């Protein structure tokens, strides 16, 4: 068993605070260290999840956080994997711990975001698909989310009211989370009254971009026991698989899918394969879960995740939602944190924040959001350029 222990979890509240990502990351790191009962000087390795929006310090996030906390000689690593950056940072830390390269590893991700749509890096870059989709098509991220949503409506009969129900559910959970940016319950009427951004999705169907920071202290099980954590939350799987050719599902930032003329697509599309790899590594399945945190970049996308992580069959996501299965108090609550709907995306911090929520739920310290008797949870996310991740944690 390749379990590692989560002995510290900490976050800086999400919002639009107008400060440097470094301040959010170090605040989260200090909270995680205090939670673990360790001093910063006990940390042998720092893994930072990079941000592309904050200049050079963002590209070397591991070193930036280590310097801000006070150089103490720890190994530093910086990783970038779009929305999966935080999970890859966790995966890197796990590899270092299991290889015996470090006893205790601090994982940190933080971002400071501008207003409006995510835009590509500047300059004239016709070789960059991310630049091209904006130049040629004006295809923003919400445009892709809307294409998926419309496809679900045509294929499965999902309705805008189903999508709104996801927002209502997640806002209700977020209202109970002091770390969330949006803490007000939202009604279906309010979703329906918000402006259409990309038909059929409205403003309240689409997640915002936020400032925020999240951190974890990870270590081996022996180290955890020696430092006062006899029964820690354990990370049992970190899946960071890549897609297989041909990718038949349209994905950001691509202008076309791979052609299937040479080869049939694999039976499971990319998002589903991310979760399957995590289940296989963890030796458990969707039937063993107490909760899940999935990447609800849009309301409709949360329904796709239900199917991709195996909570239901293809096309059955909306029914699972309508049945109340995935709300707090349901048989398998999804996005107990409030999800991206309540947080807004702080890219390099988000996948780490998902694991923070699992940690608190599995410890039984999630307060008003607590899933009674939570024993196992999965996180799932997907980012640009073939990145995705799923983390399974158990207690």
């Amino acid at each position, binding site marked *: 068993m390749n379990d590692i222990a989560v002995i510290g979890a900490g976050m800086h509240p999400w919002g639009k605070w107008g400060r440097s990502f470094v301040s959010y990351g170090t605040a989260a790191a200090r909270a995680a260290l205090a939670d673990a009962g360790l001093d910063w000087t006990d940390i042998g390795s720092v893994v930072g999840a990079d941000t592309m929006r904050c200049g050079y310090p963002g590209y070397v996030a591991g070193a930036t956080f280590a310097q801000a906390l006070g150089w103490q000689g720890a190994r530093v690593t910086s990783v970038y994997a779009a929305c999966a950056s935080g999970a890859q940072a966790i995966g890197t830390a796990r590899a270092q711990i299991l290889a015996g390269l470090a006893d205790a590893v601090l994982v940190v991700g933080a971002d400071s975001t501008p207003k409006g749509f995510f835009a590509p890096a500047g300059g004239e870059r016709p070789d960059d*698909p991310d630049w091209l989709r904006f130049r040629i098509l004006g295809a923003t991220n919400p445009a892709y989310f809307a294409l998926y949503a419309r496809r679900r409506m045509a294929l499965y009969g999902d309705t805008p009211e189903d999508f709104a129900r996801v927002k209502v559910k997640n806002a209700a959970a977020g209202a109970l989370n002091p770390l969330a940016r949006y803490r007000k319950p939202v009604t279906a009427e309010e979703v329906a009254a918000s402006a259409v951004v990309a038909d059929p999705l409205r403003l309240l169907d689409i997640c915002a971009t936020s400032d925020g920071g999240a951190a974890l202290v990870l270590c081996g099980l022996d180290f955890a026991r020696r430092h006062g954590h006899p029964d820690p939350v354990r990370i049992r799987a970190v899946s960071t698989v890549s897609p297989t*050719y041909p990718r*038949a599902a349209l994905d950001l930032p691509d202008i076309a899918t791979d052609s299937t003329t040479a080869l049939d697509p694999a039976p499971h599309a990319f998002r589903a394969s991310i979760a399957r790899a995590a289940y296989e590594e963890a030796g458990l399945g969707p039937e063993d879960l107490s909760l899940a945190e999935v990447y609800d970049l849009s309301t409709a996308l949360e329904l796709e995740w239900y199917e991709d992580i195996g909570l239901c069959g293809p096309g059955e996501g909306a029914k699972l939602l309508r049945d109340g299965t995935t709300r707090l108090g349901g048989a398998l609550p999804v996005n107990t944190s409030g999800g991206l709907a309540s947080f807004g995306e702080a890219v390099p911090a988000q996948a780490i924040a998902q694991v923070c929520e699992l940690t608190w739920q599995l410890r039984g310290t999630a307060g008003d959001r607590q899933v009674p008797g939570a024993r196992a949870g999965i996180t799932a996310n997907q980012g640009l350029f073939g990145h995705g991740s799923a983390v399974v944690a158990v207690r």
Partner: protein
Amino acid sequence: MARTRRPVVTGWFTDDTVPEGAFRLLGTRCSACAAVFFPREDDACRNPVCPGGGALGEVPLSPRGRVWSYTDGRYRPPAPYVSDPDAPWEPYTLVAVELAAEGMVVLGQAAPGVRTSDLRVGQEVEVVPGVLNEDAEHVWTTWHWRPVAPERTEERA
């Protein structure tokens, strides 16, 4: 001064030397494994189990396909999308089109005047030449998807 017509990206579609009816998106095809690439791949085949030894040659893509999905942009996208910040924003329609012969979905803007209310998933559309934007020196050309006129669909049925 007359503005020069230039494709917004080189080599992705036929130029003005062909008549409008012969306008096509251009991809490449691997001679060893038959994989088709759009946007064109000119360096090497990306099929991981391609036997190798082939060459990538230019191929026109099917001129018609069926709507996989569609949406619109109600807000002005950020640069490098070009729009006049002083003019009121005119939403554009975006269409994802499934090409049966190539087994792929290709995005594009819809022809001017086509609204989301004019589209449905599964509907037949065709590729047509279009203009993305104009500036002082250039008319930047692109491809658009346009619903196939109903009578022409019937002729084919």
